[in-house]
């Protein structure tokens, strides 16, 4: 009898040990093409790295509106152990107290300082950036050649850049446009930053009645008003990349995401990339920093395993692979010396310029601080639209915009 009890005890201990060591880490991220990319990344780099610790990794994409789904899952206690944290939602999700502060758990030193700042709220680091992106001018070489106008370059100011676009339009006629961009803060904001405007003052308030904002606003809307620029919807497209791929516009303002799109939808289009033009007054560039980080669920039952998975996901090997595959730009500062950036291909040149754009001049993370990005940028977009379509003057639009922002920020 004693032997049987002992045997039972030994067996249950073994089972216990085995189950304690077999840990499954669930990762939540975007749907679309991400499951294929992240799945590949997990198989190549994460599984081999964490296999010795008996950690199994599963990727569960959240289809539809990611932020909404993540909110539901976090609120219900069903979110993954590790998940994407878009840069613009850091403050909103940090306020839920469901994000694990990573200070002391993960070293943020190897990653770009601007990205670490993006994911830091009140001194606590909530995520490690998985990649980075910024804006650049993508231009159609054939159109510039046809019009006999010099390509956009790093020395361009708003004035010289606009001149080039106008010359292209004059040379090629009404079927072609200089540039395609939407009435969107996500593009116009970069010019406002170049002019020295900041989205929030020291009290956290937004002021659009400044000379810097107005100058950028006038530059951006002016290109549409004099028909140098066209909005994507007027070419029956949903975004600038769509009208650029059509070959009807000389330039577009986009990030590295346009590279794969052009490879698939306009493989014969010869394009080049230039940094965003400088404000002639401040002689500085502005830019948006777009990023998504890996965060850990504060309620995870397997904190140590989650940290190991996060480290494997952002390892040098994993980031080198996604860079060289042309999938994303790395968030590790050391990788800017990777040979990929110096290759003589349009993809590498675009990657190089966009990667450097992450830290050149006045760069702000694409976010709205403690406000929802949609709530914050919607009135700005409406103001841009009303001026671009001739329904309001700049003064009227900015006055209405300031009132809308005041209402939002009093909430």
């Amino acid at each position: 009898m004693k032997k049987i009890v002992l045997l039972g005890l030994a067996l249950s201990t073994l089972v216990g040990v085995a189950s304690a060591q077999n840990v499954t880490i669930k990762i939540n991220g975007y749907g679309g093409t991400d499951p294929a990319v992240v799945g590949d990344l997990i198989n190549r780099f994460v599984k081999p790295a964490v296999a010795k610790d008996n950690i199994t990794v599963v990727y569960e994409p959240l289809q539809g509106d990611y932020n909404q789904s993540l909110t539901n899952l976090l609120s219900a206690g069903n979110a993954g152990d590790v998940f994407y944290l878009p840069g613009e939602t850091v403050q909103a999700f940090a306020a839920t107290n469901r994000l694990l502060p990573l200070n002391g758990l993960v070293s943020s030193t190897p990653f770009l300082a601007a990205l670490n700042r993006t994911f830091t709220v009140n001194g606590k680091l909530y995520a490690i950036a998985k990649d980075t992106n910024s804006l650049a001018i993508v231009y159609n070489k054939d159109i510039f050649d046809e019009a006999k106008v010099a390509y956009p370059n790093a020395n361009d100011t708003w004035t010289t850049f606009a001149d080039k676009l106008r010359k292209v339009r004059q040379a090629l006629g009404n079927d072609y446009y200089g540039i395609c961009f939407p009435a969107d803060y996500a593009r116009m904001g970069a010019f406002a930053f170049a002019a020295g405007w900041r989205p929030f003052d020291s009290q956290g308030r937004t002021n659009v009645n400044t000379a810097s904002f107005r100058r950028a606003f006038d530059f951006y809307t002016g290109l549409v008003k004099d028909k140098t620029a066209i909005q994507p919807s007027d070419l029956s497209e949903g975004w600038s990349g769509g009208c650029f791929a059509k070959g009807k516009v000389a330039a577009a303002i986009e990030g590295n995401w346009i590279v794969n799109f052009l490879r698939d939808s306009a493989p014969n289009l010869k394009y080049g990339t230039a940094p965003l033009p400088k404000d002639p007054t401040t002689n500085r560039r502005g830019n948006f920093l777009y990023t998504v980080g890996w965060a850990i669920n504060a309620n995870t039952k397997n904190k140590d395993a989650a940290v190991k998975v996060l480290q494997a996901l952002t390892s040098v090997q994993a980031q080198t692979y996604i860079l060289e595959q042309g999938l994303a730009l790395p968030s590790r500062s050391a990788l800017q010396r990777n040979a990929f950036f110096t290759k003589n291909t349009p993809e590498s040149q675009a990657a190089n310029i966009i990667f450097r754009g992450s830290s050149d001049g006045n760069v702000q993370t694409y976010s709205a601080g403690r406000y929802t990005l949609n709530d914050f940028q919607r009135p700005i977009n409406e103001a841009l639209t009303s001026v671009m379509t001739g329904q309001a003057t700049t003064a009227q639009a900015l006055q209405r915009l300031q009132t809308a922002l005041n209402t939002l920020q009093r909430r």
Partner: protein
Amino acid sequence: MNAQQRSVVAAAILFLAPFLATLAVFFVYAFCRAVYFSFTNYNLFDQMNFVGLRNYAAIFGDNLFLSALRNTLLFSLITTALQTILALLMANVLNQKVKGITFFRTAWYMPSITSSVVIGLIFLWLFQRVGLANYLLTQISNYGSAIMTFLLVLVAVQIVQVVLERARRLPASWFDPALAVVSALIALIVTWLLVNFGVVRIGDNPAVNITYYATQEKLFGFLPVPLATIIAQNVFTTVPTLMLFFLAGLQNVPRALYEAAEIDGATKAQQLLYVTVPMLRPVTFYVVTVGLIGTLQMFDQVAIIGDAAPLESIVTLAYFVFTRVFSGGVAEAGFAMAGAVILAAITLLIVLLQRRFFVSDEAFQ
């Protein structure tokens, strides 16, 4: 209650159980929770506290809520009125005994079975600044003089023909189809000649450039233009469904009533007004009730338009509630629930009011 009655009741409960359970969980429980949350500062994550009527007091100071309230009421009343009238007229048209009516009934029903997302995207495309609506307006502005000439000649020739027929003591109606075809042919030839000889000129006006979505303009000073496009879209998709109810109702109206009216000399319009409309009152009550409830809770069409139109111009109460809860991170769920409860109260009130003033079931008594 004897054994047989007991077994009947038991069977009834058994069959009703799935429905009752669903109702209890997804309606009664959810509604009670929403009412409870509306008195708290619930934010989906933290411990909630009871705040009394603070959410209700605050919500009426929120400009966006007031826009949503105004838009919802406007949308609901205009859409319900339009769709009810159009569905009734359409049912009358499709109630004729003519060849190929089944085809027309099927064709006109199509918008109802198409996904509202698909229809929404088609409307977005139609009403773009370079969309079909502006293209047609441009064509009308260019060919306006030719179209007017055609119509004027058509009317003139038709009048002449009818007068001549009547002079020969033949019973010709003003809308006689055979004469109309001849008039149309003559009008077409005359217009073609006038255009070719340069008497009537085809314009070369610049493209019409109306912004239907990204605008703060208001029709008649009170109806936001983007909301008007949503009304058009909603009417387009719901009229066929409601038409089907009217069509079913029309089958039950005794033919004898129309025959009696005809003997009394009632015109078709009078028959519609004094026989069909009163006889269809129970159906109309149902159609108006369903229409009001559906339109008061309209959400998807606003969501599809999204950023393409200014929020104040299209926001409805349902969309207001949704965006306040599901924006990512901590949410003003308690505040939003106050909006949801107000929406429920308005729906109940309007339906009760129309029940009070719209006598529902006396037609067949």
